[in-house]
């Protein structure tokens, strides 16, 4: 069990002049619209409970106005809650005084913004070094570090340009480099890629995934795009009108949407690209563990199907059909079950996305075997399963 880094308990945010006065209405269960009509106060967040683990990418998603930005701004207290507890590494963020809060923002968290938030009067390298400059790190050291990060995000050579001279994608790379430059453990990303066009966006997603493989940051990522959420997220929370309607692992949300709202989201997802073989495969029935043809045929008789997956101590070996077995039986029933009578069928890998296995699954005469990294048979994927999973959305 990975340890919990950020913990949010019963968080409420009511926007308006005197939120405390109207909190009883919120607790009484009035809806966002009712509260707005009655009091002129906007219910931003309602009873949020979250636990974010060290090293994971936690995605918060929801439609425009659902409170995503409001929620992420509570993490570093750009917004103060009306009620609730925010703990980071066990310490209550709300108890920080000004100095402690400044220290916390400088060293614990960094943030990437939807509209970049770069300093237009500073050169690219000074923008990247900004966090360090604020910490009063010496200018040489800060610049050297900023240069390294610029290289990492693929922008070396742009040090002395100004943000206005860069494209959107480049500007956001600067934003990302700035966030990484402070070595903060937690990365807050508020729709960091939403303003970019699809191609650049998927490039940036790849880059983030690659960076995360080496950096192991804890990333809170906001998006309104489920495809992006599924691609990046280790876990996903879905917000609606300031409430979390479902949280869980991506497959969980895709396959078991908790409410109609989530279902509506899920409907538009390209499942073939979002799901891996592992998440939809069936248990591997028809294992043939026998060593001789005779025993193998006996095992086969016990199955409904007329084929079986041959498995031994080394893992999955191949597929054998009843017909082939019978032929071999007629020849020599005590002979070993060898590769000669098996059909050579390449197994699918657990981690492969469905899209990549569609052709071979459709071409095969029987459900394809699925193996894990060690080569052990862990499941099977049939044409039927595939069409069920992919066809469901219509």
């Amino acid at each position: 069990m990975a340890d919990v880094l950020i913990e949010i308990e019963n968080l409420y945010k009511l926007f308006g002049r005197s939120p405390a006065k109207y909190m009883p209405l919120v607790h009484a269960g009035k809806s966002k619209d009712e509260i707005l009509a009655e009091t002129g106060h906007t219910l931003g967040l309602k009873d949020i409970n979250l636990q974010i683990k060290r090293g994971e990418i936690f995605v918060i998603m929801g439609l425009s106005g659902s409170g995503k930005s409001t929620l992420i701004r509570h993490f570093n207290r750009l917004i103060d809650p009306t009620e609730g507890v925010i703990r980071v590494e066990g310490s209550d963020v709300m108890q920080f005084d000004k100095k402690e809060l400044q220290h916390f923002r400088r060293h614990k968290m960094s943030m990437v913004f939807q509209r970049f938030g770069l300093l237009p009067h500073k050169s690219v390298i000074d923008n990247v070094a900004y966090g360090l400059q604020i910490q009063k790190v010496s200018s040489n050291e800060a610049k050297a570090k900023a240069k390294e990060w610029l290289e990492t995000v693929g922008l070396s050579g742009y040090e002395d340009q100004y943000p206005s001279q860069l494209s959107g994608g480049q500007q956001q790379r600067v934003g990302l480099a700035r966030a990484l430059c402070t070595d903060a453990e937690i990365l807050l990303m508020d729709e960091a890629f939403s303003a970019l066009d699809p191609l650049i966006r998927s490039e940036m997603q790849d880059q983030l995934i690659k960076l995360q493989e080496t950096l192991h940051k804890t990333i809170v990522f906001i998006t309104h795009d489920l495809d992006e959420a599924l691609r990046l997220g280790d876990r996903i929370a879905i917000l609606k009108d300031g409430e979390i309607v479902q949280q869980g692992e991506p497959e969980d949300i895709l396959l078991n949407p908790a409410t109609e709202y989530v279902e509506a989201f899920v409907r538009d997802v390209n499942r073939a690209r979002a799901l891996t073989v592992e998440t939809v495969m069936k248990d591997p029935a028809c294992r043939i563990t026998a060593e001789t043809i005779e025993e193998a045929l006996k095992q086969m008789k016990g199955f409904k199907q007329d084929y079986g997956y041959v498995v031994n101590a080394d893992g999955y070996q191949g597929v054998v059909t009843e017909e082939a077995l019978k032929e071999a039986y007629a020849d020599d029933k005590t002979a070993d079950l060898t590769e000669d009578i098996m059909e050579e069928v390449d197994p699918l890998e657990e981690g492969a996305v469905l899209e990549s296995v569609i052709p071979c699954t459709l071409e095969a005469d029987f459900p394809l075997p699925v193996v894990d990294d060690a080569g052990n048979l862990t499941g099977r994927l049939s044409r039927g399963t595939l069409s069920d999973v992919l066809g469901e959305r219509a």
Partner: protein
Amino acid sequence: MAESSWLTEFPQLERADLRDIRKSLDAGYREFSREYGELIESFFDPLLTFLVWFEKLLLATPWWLVIAVIAGLAYFASRSWKLGLGVVISFMLIGYFGMWDNTMRTMSIILVCTLMAIALGVPIGIGMARSDRTQSLVTPILDVMQTMPAFVYLIPVVMLLGIGKIPGVIAVIIYAIPPVIRLTNLGIRLVDKDVMEAATAYGASPLQRLMGVQLPLAMPTIMAGINQTIMMSLSMVVIASMIGVKGLGQPVLKSITNQYFTLGLLNGLAIVALAIIFDRVSQAYAKRAQEHMKGLENG
């Protein structure tokens, strides 16, 4: 007086009452200036010393050196040799028509007034930008300062400090300071919220945000305010000459009373020349300093 007369005639304060009010107010203020006049004057002594020193410096420096320095400044601020050349020609003409000394005096008073206006105005503008209450308090005062005819506030200043350079400087500053204050306030308030939020998120202290983000980003607007302040102090120079400020204003005043058309015109033109030079130089400098921020709105 019949009861119904207020329908046709405005119910006016009795003449005697009005006179009493005036008398007591005037007496009160006179009392105040007698009591504190010297104290207040001594408060402004350092300013006077600086002003006199600077004026002497300008007057004592050989004319070609002054022209070279000003033309050089103009060139470095704008990187335009045309502007530099314009400066040289204007000052040559000014000197040729015998207005050199007065021009130097006017320049020194403008410089002091502008520096004072910046030193006072920018902090006030920052204060206004930080709190809505301060803004709602200061704005009407600025309105009064800008619309009240200059002569009206010359009176108490003269009563308090007499005739001379310092009351002149004060009058000019009162007249010219509102644009710096207003535009500093506006410039800071217009700074992009997203950029400010980013600075806060990275743990910038209020001072770091002010010096590192707000002031630099508000600078084009503040520069526009300073530019206006310079222009307004130049136009105030003529009025200030009425209370004994020496410079280009005095010949203009003299020409009005004596109907010397040419003298008035020449000195007026010299003021215009100064105004144009100050305006172009400060604008060119502001523009060059903000070059890279161009096109950000559409980018």
